[in-house]
């Protein structure tokens, strides 16, 4: 840090998942920011942004829930840091829509009984790391480079789409995750499914959909030679980690499929069952904090289903 430059500091909207099913994302985000000496202060009394279910059936409700949370965030100094891709997308969408549509803004302001605050910059953890903290400084801060770790960077849907809303990176060919991985000393792999949907919140209502879509993502990462997948969304993490064993049971024996029985297991489109290895799913903040020398015990590895420790030991990162 150059002398006299103000310490980076953010207000923080964790979101519901980070307080429960994605708790290790919250734990590792706090640990990482502490290690980088970046301030992070939780917004008091924040509540659910409505996520996909709210805008699915009631856009006005979705916009109002987010607008109220944005005005709560105004009480805390600093740009608003968001880790969850769904919360990030909803908060950015709300600012974008309400700036453009005055009628909707007035309705929302009536609903939240106060002015909509649309000017606080909302930033995803990825852009804070890559652009505000900066890739060069991030690379300098690395204490334990993630040498030899082949990572499939998975963007999913909401970090980049639709293009005018998140303003995070290119909507078809982003590179922010790979850039961060290189700065951490890891090796991002090239793969086909980094922006395909995992099935998201169908995990509750239609798990079969999730099994099919997430299986394609896991297979694509395996075929690209990845050791693990890195995500920045608690729903993507849940689908790829929590449901991975179920996916293996559902799609685990490629030879029993029609393709398998006709072409045998050397079909290049799928891996063989022996090769269908477990893929640990990391949050961006877990990998970054590990590279910054944060003790693995404080990164929430005990909470995940696919144990990442054997892989990390194998790569001499633990």
């Amino acid at each position, binding site marked *: 840090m150059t002398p006299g430059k103000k310490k980076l500091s953010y207000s923080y909207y964790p979101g519901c*998942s980070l307080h429960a099913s994605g708790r290790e994302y919250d734990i590792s985000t706090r640990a990482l920011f502490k290690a980088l000496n970046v301030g992070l202060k939780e917004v008091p009394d924040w509540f659910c942004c409505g996520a996909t279910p709210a805008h699915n059936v009631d*856009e006005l*409700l979705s916009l*109002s829930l987010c607008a109220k949370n944005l005005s709560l965030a105004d009480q805390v100094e600093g740009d608003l840091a968001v880790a969850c891709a769904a919360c990030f997308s909803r908060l950015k969408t709300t600012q974008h829509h309400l700036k453009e549509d005055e009628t909707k803004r007035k309705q929302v302001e*009536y609903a939240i009984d106060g002015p909509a605050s649309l000017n606080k910059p909302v930033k995803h953890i990825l852009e804070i790391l890559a652009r505000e903290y900066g890739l060069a400084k991030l690379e300098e801060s690395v204490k334990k480079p993630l040498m030899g770790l082949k990572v499939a960077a998975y963007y999913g849907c909401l970090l980049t*789409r639709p293009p005018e809303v998140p303003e995070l990176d290119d909507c*078809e060919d982003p590179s922010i995750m790979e850039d961060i991985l290189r700065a951490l000393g890891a090796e991002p792999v090239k793969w086909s499914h980094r922006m395909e*949907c995992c099935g998201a919140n169908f995990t509750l209502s239609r798990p079969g*959909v999730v099994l099919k879509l997430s299986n394609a993502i896991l297979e694509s990462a395996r075929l690209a030679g990845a050791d693990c997948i890195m995500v920045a969304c608690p729903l993507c993490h849940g689908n790829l980690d929590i449901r991975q064993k179920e996916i293996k049971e559902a799609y685990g024996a490629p030879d029993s499929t029609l393709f398998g029985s006709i072409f045998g297991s050397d079909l290049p489109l799928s891996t063989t069952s022996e090769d269908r290895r477990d893929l640990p799913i990391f949050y961006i903040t877990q990998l970054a904090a590990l590279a910054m020398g944060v003790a693995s015990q404080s990164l929430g590895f005990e*909470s995940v289903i696919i144990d990442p420790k054997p892989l990390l030991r194998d790569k001499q990162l633990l």
Partner: protein
Amino acid sequence: MKNKLMHLSNETMNVGFVKKVEALSGSSVRRCFQCGKCSAGCPMSTFMEHPPNRIVRLLQLGQGQRVLAGRSIWYCASCETCTTRCPNKVDLAAIMDALRKLSWDADGPSKESYVQLANRLFIENIRTYGRQYELRLGAIFNMKSGQFLKDLMLGPKLLSKGKLKMFHSKNRNIGDIEGIFKRIEEMRKKGEAL
């Protein structure tokens, strides 16, 4: 229904419905020239009887009931690929939201009530607690959908991993949150909001 011959007339075309969809979504269906990019990129089109481009075509032809009666709108994952790739700036993801809202308001003829049930419980959770209570969401979903054994083995595992919390407290500002719901209902009652 899919392949049934369609007769277009004033009686079979509901233009009012399409106008409602356009007003709710802020997007025109008339701009679509059927290039099909939305359906080509849609991760869910294999689950749908009408792929996204056909949904827009049906709306252009005033066939709202056909769209609502099908399951396509309840299999849209809101991934926004269609909106991102449309060369004519048709916001198909917003149109899907509008269609679900209209089906929701009418307590729809949709066959896909599981998704509707999940959405309803999720929103109820916000109104009651402020933040999501995931254990309750899953448990009540299973009860109400009659799938008592769904993810039965997963629950205890996630509890032991700390990924589900047994108990959950309400937000201090739950009154403010209730106020948002109430005022939206009030605006709609007065016809001041869609």
